[in-house]
């Protein structure tokens, strides 16, 4: 058999897989994804359209443009006060959670602690528990302590419920900082305070920022906890206020609702963009260790 013949024989053995441009499986997958996506996107579309529509209703329709809804909402005292409440609630929660998470995560990352693994797993489990499960006993506790209807005490429980995940997140960020850096600094003669201030803090700052932003976004959107633990109109944060827009104000004011929702989403979007910068590798430990 000559070389040419051999090659021909080889070519005949090739199996040609027919290439179909659109397989039914791909069509189905994409349909499902589009369907799921529209569950998220259509309400947002409605929110944008309705906010500038002079006569909005349930339907998604091209608006008859107006800014009346905006002036209306910005003139409402309850809308403004709910922003203030949300800021206090989410801000306090974020500060408390972040500080405690850093303080807890550092030793969990660096020190030899008995039953550390079990503890971390318990934390992970706790971070998955739905808070609504606990809301009744917590309500009773707040009644007992006389803590009801205060944004700061409400923030305390929000902080408690966001702490497990924040610790978990923070520990992973601290784990990523090589312990040898701290050892090198100690040999260099640095005190613990200096090591924390000049090494640990700057190197974990992205992690702290991410933890804080994540906590803030969650607290900003928290509904059930403030809904149960606060009652006076001045203390209603945004999500509860939106609920009130829909229910107790009698008839629906779709335009106001859409504007309020839109304005309320702005901080979340801004913070999200800010956070994504850290995740896209704006910071790394290049050159620290080989």
């Amino acid at each position, binding site marked *: 058999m000559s070389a040419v013949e051999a090659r021909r024989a080889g070519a005949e053995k090739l199996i040609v897989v027919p290439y179909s441009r659109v397989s039914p499986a791909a069509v189905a997958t994409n349909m499902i994804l589009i369907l799921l996506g529209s569950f998220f996107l259509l309400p947002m579309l409605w929110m944008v359209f309705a906010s500038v529509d002079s006569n909005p209703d349930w339907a998604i329709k091209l608006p008859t443009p107006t800014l009346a809804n905006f002036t209306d909402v910005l003139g409402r005292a309850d809308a403004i006060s709910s922003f203030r409440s949300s800021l206090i609630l989410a801000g306090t929660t974020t500060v408390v959670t972040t500080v405690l998470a850093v303080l807890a995560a550092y030793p969990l990352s660096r020190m030899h602690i008995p039953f550390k693994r079990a503890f971390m797993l318990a934390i992970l489990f706790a971070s998955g528990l739905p808070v609504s499960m606990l809301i009744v006993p917590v309500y009773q506790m707040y009644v007992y302590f006389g803590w009801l209807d205060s944004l700061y005490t409400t923030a305390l429980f929000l902080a408690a419920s966001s702490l497990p995940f924040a610790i978990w997140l923070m520990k992973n960020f601290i784990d990523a900082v090589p312990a040898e850096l701290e050892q090198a600094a100690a040999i260099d*003669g640095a005190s613990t305070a200096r090591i924390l201030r000049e*090494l640990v803090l700057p190197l974990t700052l992205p992690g702290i920022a991410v933890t804080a932003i994540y906590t803030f976004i969650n607290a900003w959107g928290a509904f059930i906890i403030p809904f149960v633990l606060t009652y006076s109109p001045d203390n209603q944060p945004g999500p509860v206020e939106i609920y009130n827009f829909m229910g107790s104000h009698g008839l629906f004011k779709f335009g106001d609702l859409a504007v309020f929702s839109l304005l309320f989403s702005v901080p979340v979007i801004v913070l999200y963009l800010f956070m994504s910068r850290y995740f896209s590798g704006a910071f790394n430990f290049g050159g620290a260790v080989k």
Partner: protein
Amino acid sequence: MLSEVRFEGVHKIFGTETAVEDLNLRVNAGEFLVLVGPSGCGKTTTLRMLAGLERPSYGRILIGDKLVNNVSPRFRDVAMVFQSYALYPHMNVYDNLAFGMRARGAAGSVIAQRVKETAEVLGLAQLMKRRPSELSGGQRQRVALGRALIRQPQVFLMDEPLSNLDAGLRVQMRAELSRLHERFRVTTLYVTHDQVEAMTMGDRIAVMNSGRLQQVDAPETLYDNPANIFVAGFIGSPRMNFVRGSLTTTRGVAAVEFLGVTTPLSSRAKLTAEAADGAVTVGLRPEDLMWRRAAPPESTLTLSAEVDVVEPMGHEAYVTAVCAGETVTSRFPPRSGVRTRDRIELALNPARLHLFDARSGNTILQRPVAGGAELPRSVGEARVDESEEGRSERQREPHTRSAQSRAEEIS
């Protein structure tokens, strides 16, 4: 301000694993001592105990005359170059160098001056504004070195600082480190797994294996008089050949038989007390096992062998041959023309033999060192001698060592 460093009966146990076992070692003031051994033998652990990053499970560590077991790293006045360099990633070169002096509260102008000097010594002056991530491997290594140098500590600790550099840079940095030590004479404990680094840089070399110190000696002594098979095999490239042999003593004359030949032992070499007639392991360095045609007249023993592999190195060639059923490597001149399956004659100087106890692996032949003077040497049968209260790094001597030589050693 030169300080010596002493480990006295130091153990380090991690859970069930003994990383360092009964370490007795002295680094003399101003000495460059290289700690060498295969990966995982406990070198880093030893260094970290001296730095204060690990606490010894047992034993004492002294810097100067001060017991430092309970002194935190911050107050030990040592500087360490980590295997990983551990540069501060968010600081530029200047701040990396200045960090230690700032931490110790030096004045700004003093710091600037010292950083400038150090950077000049290490050729970093152009890189002061760069972060570690913007430096090459060699430059990072220099910064790590600079961070240690700038401090003028009592002791330098270096953990395989050259292991991540490419070959050319490694040779260059080796020379540079030796030069820096010449200049500043700071007591240095230098860890490596590379025997070439150990031989070229060390005033003395400490060989470690599986957590135990095997031998501490000057490079040539270590090479000529390895305390046991491990040291003999670890130091030297190509590796020493080990072949089976047997020792016989007739009318007070010891002779050893190996590879089909028998030779009386040189009258200048002394057998240790452990030596007994019977099976021994004979060690032959490849450079002592020569091609008959290229051998000097002292190589009186002739062995016949069949060539297995020839590895030309350019300036020489390694020839692996089978001789009396054992495979041995010898160093040949280049272009000898021998090929696989050739029958060749190898020549050996009987004075260059090494003999080891077949079971314990300890040397049983005390060979005279070049020049004839017997230097004190230490053997790795590490047990603290109670009478010495663990005061010296010398391990218990072979029992044959005379009281006289022991006295010489102490004086």
